[in-house]
């Protein structure tokens, strides 16, 4: 009778699930009963056999890609309190940046907001349609926040916001309608990520005068340095051919708040260093600029052009 109990509980014994007193009793029985001892041996061997053959384990790749996908999915997951979605999350930005070394050059410029996120998705092969929709559905339907007021003495908040109905235009970069939307986006969109996306696409067609104008506008006035740098790079090749481009780049060199952009602008002005207006600026910078690097570079450029005279 005892043997029956033992056989029923041997599995539990082998998996260390028996209560102390039961375990003790089983030990005692097995010491005296050959049958049950054999049974115990079999049970132990079976467990060892299975332990010898471990199941496939997830590799680091699988884990990393699962985490990334989850992060992306969490961006659009609703949890409640949609207005929190509009806030910039530095921790999340850092995460994205770690995953995309291609953005390293862009990282040199400080002060990014949503632009990096949009660039990352552009690099990873987002569709070429103008980015009319931004990162969350809720965000896309909000045209702007009109007012935020808090009831004094309570935590009751009232927010007025405008919504738009979202439409979609599809087509190639050459089509007029697409270009129009891109130009509009580059100038007007409140979301820097969308401005970034459209400037990105516009940089593919800097020959067009209107496009160049939009890029100059972005270089001059866009609040997001990532957008400005994209425009600057696209305009760089036209510094020699187009006076308005040259002037815009000069302005960026003098006025831009971002050191990286100023440095890049200086570099791009190299082909026109002999121009009188450029020289005038270089002389001022060589003498008075706060940044030592800018001073040195300006001097060096000035020196080179005198040699050429």
């Amino acid at each position, binding site marked *: 009778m005892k043997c029956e109990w033992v056989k*029923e509980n041997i*599995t*539990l014994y082998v*998996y260390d*699930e028996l209560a102390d007193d039961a375990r003790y009793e089983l030990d005692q029985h097995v010491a005296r009963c050959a049958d049950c001892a054999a049974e115990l041996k*079999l*049970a132990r*061997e*079976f*467990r060892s*056999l*299975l332990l*010898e*053959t*471990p*199941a*496939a*384990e*997830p590799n680091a790749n*699988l*884990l990393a*890609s*699962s*985490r990334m*996908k*989850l*992060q992306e*999915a*969490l961006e659009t*997951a*609703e*949890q*409640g*309190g949609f207005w*929190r979605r509009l806030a910039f*999350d530095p*921790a*999340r930005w850092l995460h994205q940046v770690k995953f995309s070394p291609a953005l390293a050059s862009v990282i040199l410029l400080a002060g990014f907001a949503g632009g990096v996120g949009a660039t990352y998705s552009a690099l990873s092969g987002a569709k070429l349609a103008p980015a009319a929709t931004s990162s969350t559905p809720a965000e896309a339907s909000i045209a702007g926040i009109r007012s935020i007021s808090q009831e004094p003495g309570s935590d009751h908040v009232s927010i007025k916001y405008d919504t738009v109905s979202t439409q979609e235009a599809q087509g190639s970069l050459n089509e007029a309608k697409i270009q129009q939307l891109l130009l509009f986006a580059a100038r007007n969109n409140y979301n820097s990520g969308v401005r970034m996306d459209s400037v990105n696409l516009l940089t593919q067609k800097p020959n067009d005068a209107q496009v160049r104008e939009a890029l100059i506008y972005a270089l001059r006035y866009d609040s997001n340095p990532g957008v400005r740098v994209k425009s600057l790079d696209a305009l760089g090749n036209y510094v020699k051919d187009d006076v308005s481009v040259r002037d815009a780049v000069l302005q960026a060199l003098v006025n831009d708040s971002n050191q990286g952009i100023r440095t890049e602008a200086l570099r791009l002005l190299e082909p026109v260093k002999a121009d009188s207006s450029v020289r005038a600026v270089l002389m001022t910078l060589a003498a008075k600029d706060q940044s030592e690097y800018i001073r040195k570079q300006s001097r060096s450029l000035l020196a080179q052009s005198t040699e050429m005279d």
Partner: protein
Amino acid sequence: MAGQERRIDDTALIREAQQGNRAAFEELVRYYDQSVLRLALHLTGSEHEAQDIYQDAFLKAYKNIGNFRFECSFYTWIYRIVTNLCLDQIRRKQVRKEDAPVAKDKSGEEFSLLDQVADGRSGADPERDLMRRELGKRIGNALEKLTARERMVFELKHYHGLKLRTVGEILQTTEETAKNTLFRATQKLRVALVDMR
């Protein structure tokens, strides 16, 4: 992980996550997601399916974390979500009567996940490796013969080392039921693998 310490950390993070702090939720995820992925992979045998379950489980957790009332540990709660998803998947596959776990590698070739058992000792003894792979296949086949619940209890006990009391909590049943299920599972497996030593 020191149990008590882990619990205290969780509480703060959970409360933060409940307030909508996504970074807090992501930190919670990182403590548990390796085990979750492992569980899903063992039970489905497919990297793709495991990843899907991983996504579904954590998204569900994110959406429902507001309902978490600390009546059990977060560990139990998240495991409950994952096991339910896995059970559904297992049952779906049983209905379709699929074979032993297979997956497709980059060239589209099917291979058994159990063939891929990484083993530091392999290479030195090809005969032993072959036996190990054979055994892996046999075990895979034997596991397929279990009911979804038997498979789950066995997986949680044998591969994750959980106490049957915890298993009962996760599967929302009693410890006694879990014990009986384990017994049945091991019996079936022993019968299926009787000639392998």
